[in-house]
């Protein structure tokens, strides 16, 4: 295809991506270097029956004028990155010198909002991803050995947790697991503890969110493994059987190696998607015991106390750096697959 024709074909798509994906990444960085204006104060003489005194007052006009002239705020350099709500450099170094053990240091760090969110985000990402791969693989193996008539309906039901809106899916589970809902009440009955509430305990809240994450993403892994199982060559399996391989050995040494590329694919996609975990925290109202990087950005923007663009920008830049790290293997793999191949 000629370069000119290519250009006109790709132009509309490219323009939208540049305007609404590439530019915002740049603007987020610029925002992160600025901070909200402080209010302008002026000195006023306040005279009453007991004489006059000088008072500081908020100059409303000047403040709004300043906000209007420079909506970005004032330049702050990397100050926002270093403050307590983000990387908390000084807090960390004091904690490092003052903490007797590494454990104390970690719990000090966990009290800082950014590291708290990072801890949950990483735990969620690196627990949900392998669990999704394992559960998806088991479901695929099991469904693959069902009689043909039952496969269709089973796949239909299996797709539901993935297809449903994440916020709605987490709400549905949340209502069931509520201490007045069916699951919550059953758990209280099983453990004979009428005060048991999943919402009250941070550990149980984390567990609940992780269970939701696995429930939501397992169908994706299942479908891909299921399709992969259809491509396992029958001759290889038969040859293994003739050689006396047991069922377990066939699964372990024939089927599993055949599916390795799919495992890598699912794991990479899941790492990227789980790193942005956000909706379940809103759905489960779990912010008291679990926050994620995406959630603190959202809270900065629409948390009800006004919007803190500088703070949201700094967290966004740090999140993008995290994504970049996760992205390197994906890019590497795609690069290798496509190299030499005609695009």
């Amino acid at each position, binding site marked *: 295809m000629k370069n000119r024709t290519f250009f006109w074909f790709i132009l509309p798509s490219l323009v939208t991506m540049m305007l609404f994906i590439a530019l915002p990444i740049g603007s*987020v960085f610029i925002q992160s270097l600025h901070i909200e204006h402080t209010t302008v104060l002026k000195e006023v003489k306040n005279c009453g029956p007991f004489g006059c005194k000088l008072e500081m007052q908020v100059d409303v006009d000047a403040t709004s004028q300043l906000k209007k002239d420079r909506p970005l705020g004032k330049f702050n350099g990397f100050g926002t990155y270093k403050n307590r709500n983000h990387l908390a450099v000084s807090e960390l170094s004091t904690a490092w010198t003052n903490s007797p053990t590494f454990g104390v240091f970690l719990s000090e760090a966990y009290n800082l909002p950014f590291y708290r969110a990072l801890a949950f985000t990483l735990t969620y990402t690196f627990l949900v991803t392998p669990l999704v791969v394992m559960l998806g693989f088991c479901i695929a193996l099991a469904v693959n050995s069902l009689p043909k008539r039952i496969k269709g309906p089973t796949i239909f039901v*299996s797709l539901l947790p993935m297809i449903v809106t994440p916020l709605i899916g987490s709400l549905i589970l949340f209502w069931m697991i509520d201490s007045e809902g069916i699951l919550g009440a059953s758990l209280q009955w099983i453990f004979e503890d009428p005060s048991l509430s999943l919402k009250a305990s941070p550990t149980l809240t984390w567990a609940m969110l992780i269970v939701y994450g696995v429930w939501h993403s397992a169908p994706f892994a299942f479908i891909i493994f299921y399709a992969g199982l259809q491509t396992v060559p029958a001759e290889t399996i038969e040859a293994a059987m003739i050689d006396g391989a047991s069922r377990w050995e066939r699964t372990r040494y024939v089927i599993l190696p055949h599916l390795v590329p799919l495992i890598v694919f699912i794991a990479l996609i899941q790492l990227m998607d789980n790193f942005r975990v956000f909706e379940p925290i809103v759905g489960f109202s779990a912010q008291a015991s679990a926050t994620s990087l995406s959630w603190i950005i959202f809270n900065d923007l629409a948390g009800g106390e006004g919007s803190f663009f500088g703070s949201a920008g700094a967290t966004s830049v740090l999140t993008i750096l995290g994504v970049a790290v996760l992205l390197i293997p994906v890019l590497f793999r795609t690069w290798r697959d496509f190299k030499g191949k005609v695009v």
Partner: protein
Amino acid sequence: MSELIHRRPKSLNIVIWVFVLCWVVAAGFPFLWTMWGSFKVQGDFFSKADWTYAISGVRTQIETGGAFTGDGYFGAWVTKSFWTAALNTMIVVISVVVISLTLGTLGGYALARSGKKYAFYLLMLALVFRAMPHITLVSGYLLPFFEWNIWGHLPTAIIVMVAINQPFTLWMLHSFFLNIPKDLDESAMVDGCTRFQAFRRVIVPVMWPGVITTGLFSFLLAYNDFTVTATLLGQSSQTMVPKIASFLGTTQTEGNVMFAVAAVVSATAPLFILVMFFQRQIVSGLTAGAVKG
């Protein structure tokens, strides 16, 4: 494979059946339960006394006189005007799907037919864009959108979602177009068509299976979005998902939770129908990128 099935020991068969049954219950039961509960009153669905009330509907009998009630649905759709949110969602979703597919088919076709190095770099760039968490992009939009006074309007949210959707759409359509033989449009060009005419007259008629599959995923992205719609739309132009989230803020009053439950069930229904009719396309779309690539 059929002979393998006969040779499976009985104990293994039982394990497989029990496992599949557990998974199917885990995947499907929550939806069934919530749908059933949406026709009850709060005292039954969230029963302080006994969870079996949700099945028998004891409080529902007392409060409304029947075993089932549509109060939740009436409250959500009429009193809380959920219908405007549903209408907004419809506008947003249809526009996003149509625009993304239009831009995506043009771009995906060009990427599939270019054969140049830069096409590959563009695809890599799209992959990078796809990985960006949506909320980080939104935090870049908000301030400029406030400044230009385009915050809170449906078209703004639509174009933003189209853009966020593009990387995925491009990748998917690109791989579909690779499967359409090159000879088809090239022979049309030998016959004197320009590239665009060849695209319109020869490629467009045969591309629909791929476009429908990609469209399904665009639909899901737009329909399921919470991040963009919750931050870029105001009260008056709210779509369904942020509307449901806003019900939760006001759950203190008795019965409001049931509005949210009814709204959740209403918003899930279209997705059920979608999976029912397009199960094959969804499965093939999910596997297209993985198994072939």
